[in-house]
């Protein structure tokens, strides 16, 4: 029973929409969020009390199964009616169950790849493909790191040809904007021609 009452003195309550930023540990997720967010990235934690059973094997430890998952996020005000949130998702594979919850209702996702460890974004790519969440792959080009071409990344990750791949600098607002714009256009294309 969510109260959807959007009428109040002083105007309507804005509605929110979210984009996920996923990728391996240290790929630059929070950096990218911070590059475009109008607020300094905030951090919150979600306490998970289930589904980690069998993953976090605490053999012999009498303890309740809770995992605290930290999420960094930023905000972009689109209009007085719409706010966009960017969530950096936990990089570790064992938090997949959390992503499912996070992925629900997401506009789309950015998979940040680290050129030094391209394989660390496999789980994210897999996940969004299975969930049917439209995504783009942004290759964060760290200084001095070997730079793949977009085509090489598409092949290495065995991506659908339609999935946009961009080289980016997660620290740069212009570059991060380009990544987000590419995602929104990709979502629009997917909307026009559903797979």
């Amino acid at each position, binding site marked *: 029973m*969510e109260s959807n009452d959007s009428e109040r003195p002083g105007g309507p309550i804005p509605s929110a929409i979210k984009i996920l930023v996923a990728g391996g540990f240290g790929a630059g997720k929070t950096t990218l969020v911070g590059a475009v967010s109008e607020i300094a990235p905030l951090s919150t934690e979600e306490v998970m009390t289930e589904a980690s059973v069998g993953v976090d094997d605490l053999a012999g430890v009498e303890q309740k199964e809770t995992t605290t998952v930290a*999420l960094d996020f930023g*905000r972009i005000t689109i209009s007085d009616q719409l706010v966009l949130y960017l969530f950096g998702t936990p990089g570790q594979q064992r938090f997949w169950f959390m992503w499912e919850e996070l992925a629900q209702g997401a506009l789309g996702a950015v998979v940040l790849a680290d050129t030094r460890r391209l394989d660390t974004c496999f789980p994210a790519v897999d996940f969004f493909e299975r969930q049917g969440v439209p995504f783009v792959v942004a290759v964060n080009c760290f200084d001095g790191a070997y730079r793949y071409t977009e085509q090489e990344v598409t092949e290495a990750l065995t991506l659908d040809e339609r999935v946009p791949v961009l080289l980016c600098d997660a620290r740069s607002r212009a570059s991060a*904007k380009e990544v987000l714009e590419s995602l929104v256009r990709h979502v629009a294309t997917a909307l026009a021609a559903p797979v």
Partner: protein
Amino acid sequence: MAEHREPGYDAEGADPLVRPYVITQGREHSDAVRLDMISVVIAARADVDEMALEPEQLRILDLCRRPQSVAEVSAHLDMPVAVVKVLLGDLISRGYVLARAPYTQQSPVNREILQAVLDGIQRL
């Protein structure tokens, strides 16, 4: 449920003397209101009976003078999302706070909304 501990929380929490699940009186889920992490909440009225509310709920009301997502309230109060949802659920059922569901729960994504998002990003 009273033994539901969050290891490490006490050391870093906003209030080291009160564990989150004590604040929510042991409840983990709000019964009446389903909130998402990006549900937007806002204070609904100016007259507040301060004696009838928990200190944490008063802090929430203070934050909610401007529209905020559940995640933002959680971050500002340095409390887990699950706990904030319970506190907010109470405030909503008692008429102190209004909430709006995320956009995609209300309507599917369409061209207009994508264009609005694109324009918003380009304006940055």
